[in-house]
């Protein structure tokens, strides 16, 4: 087989009569940035849910670094090095940015049945958290309550938290959602940096970003992967054009 870090075999998820994931077969190779695109309702969120463990598939298998993780609970996948960001910002709003990231660091620093020492004064946790914030450009905003950060900053913090768990692979669920042009450009720059050291599965609506970043792209339509290939191949694929790009290009004029 190829050098797949994440490998999805025959993944199927049904909600009543609706087949949201239809026998999905997909490999994400080590070191690549693999993007998944597809029109609304294609089953991207359902797929992410199964990869992170929030949804149990009806059939099929998910392997991460050779190990079968199909039945593992959410937190175990994170410990194995599979980190995610959320499409709809999901943070600890009543904590500071630094507290948010420090919690992610703490999650991967042994068990947390430690009842006495003030965790906010543990330099190990704090420094690692600061480093992750610096990486996404939020170093100066460390002590700000998350509820008071801007939307763009929330998106950056999402990435910082995923990074703080020392992942081997990132699952990014629409990291550019709701961003302005400038913010999107900055995020693309950041992802370009990250893809040098991490394997990334990117789910994204922003076509420009996807084609600028991805090594390979898979197209999901009605729960099925209709094509996988290099950006140029995907652009040229007639099936993809009709199913998806056609709409997008039409929209772009």
């Amino acid at each position: 087989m190829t050098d797949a870090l994440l490998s999805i075999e025959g993944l199927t998820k049904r909600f009543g009569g609706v087949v949201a994931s239809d026998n999905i077969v997909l490999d994400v190779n080590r070191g690549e940035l693999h993007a998944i695109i597809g029109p609304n309702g294609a089953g991207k969120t359902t797929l992410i849910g199964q990869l992170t463990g929030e949804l149990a598939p009806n059939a099929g298998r998910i392997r991460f670094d050779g190990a079968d993780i199909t039945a593992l609970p959410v937190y175990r996948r994170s410990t194995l090095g599979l980190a995610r960001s959320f499409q709809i910002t999901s943070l600890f709003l009543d904590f500071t940015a630094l507290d948010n990231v420090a919690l992610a660091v703490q999650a991967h620093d042994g068990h947390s049945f430690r009842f006495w020492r003030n965790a906010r004064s543990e330099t190990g946790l704090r420094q690692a958290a600061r480093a992750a914030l610096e990486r996404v450009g939020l170093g100066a905003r460390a002590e700000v309550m998350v509820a008071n950060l801007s939307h763009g900053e929330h998106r950056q913090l999402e990435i910082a938290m995923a990074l703080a768990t020392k992942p081997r692979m990132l699952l990014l669920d629409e990291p550019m959602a709701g961003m302005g042009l400038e913010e999107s450009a900055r995020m693309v720059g950041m992802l370009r940096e990250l893809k040098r050291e991490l394997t990334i599965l990117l789910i994204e609506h922003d076509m420009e970003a996807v084609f600028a970043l991805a090594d390979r792209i898979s197209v999901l339509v009605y729960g099925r992967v209709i094509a996988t290939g290099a950006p140029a191949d995907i652009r040229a694929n007639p099936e993809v054009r009709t199913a998806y790009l056609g709409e997008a290009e039409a929209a772009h004029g």
Partner: protein
Amino acid sequence: MTALLTPRNVFIVALIALLALLPVYALLTGHTFIVTLFTRIVILAMAAVSLNLIMGFGGMVSFGHAAYIGIGGYVIGILAKEGIGSGFVQWPLALLVSGLFALSVGALCLRTRGVYFIMITLAFSQMIYYVAIGLDRYGGDDGLTIQKRSDFGAIFDLSDRTRFYYLCLVLLLITVYLLRRIVNSRFGLVIQGGRSNERRMRAIGFPTFRYKLICFVIAGMLCGLSGVLLANHTNFISPAIMHWTRSGDLIVMVVLGGMGSVFGPVIGAVALLVLEEALPYAIGFASYLIVGKEVMGAREYWQLILGPMLLLIVLFARGGIDGLLMRARRD
């Protein structure tokens, strides 16, 4: 960091000083009943503080917390009745039973959330309540008189009113300090993170259930301790000490004093229970001022005053009394 001399800190120190000096006042004036009253307040404050750990910090609104007061109390009462009077046996056993009960209840309840969690904790406490009513040997509905307080030999004599009060107060302060350590520890941050966004907690790698369960057990044991003290205080236990309205009282104390503040529930307990005592007199006094004589039965309606007061606090003072004090610093 923040200044030490904030209105809030001054208030807290003043309240502790007041509680500490209360027996002196009672001694000087001869109003010994006030020590009895405040022993009860301090004990229930401890129960409220323990509830706040799961409710204020963990976001787990338990509507059955008084069950642990009952369990702590009944272990004392049952052992005393069976001739085991040693506090060295009674107290650890009471904490152990409270903890085990919390463990089994938590293992089931913590799989639910929101209203379901509230209802299922209530159901479990009602179950214990009716079990106590069914215990004919231990007085059933009528309750059970405890002939002798827990015996700690020559080390500590619980029978002295003032000493017992100080014991309760010291245990309360230790509990508050313990909680302060816990909520700021790694464990505490996991608990608070779970309140804030449990889904995210799991996504970053925390098995949240086991942390919440241990938190539930700690709260149950601390509340069990307050039951131990209450049984020793009143020398009497009955199912009434864990009636569901008592669980409601505890929630009111927490909300009134300040959810998510370690000391808040102490303020809430003092405020609520003092008001309960004082409002009937206040009504009597007011009716005397207005009509020139005491209106028959008017005192009975003190809850009519208390209700709206609570409502106003909940509506306009987020973070309870403690929240008000914190804002006093900022303005």
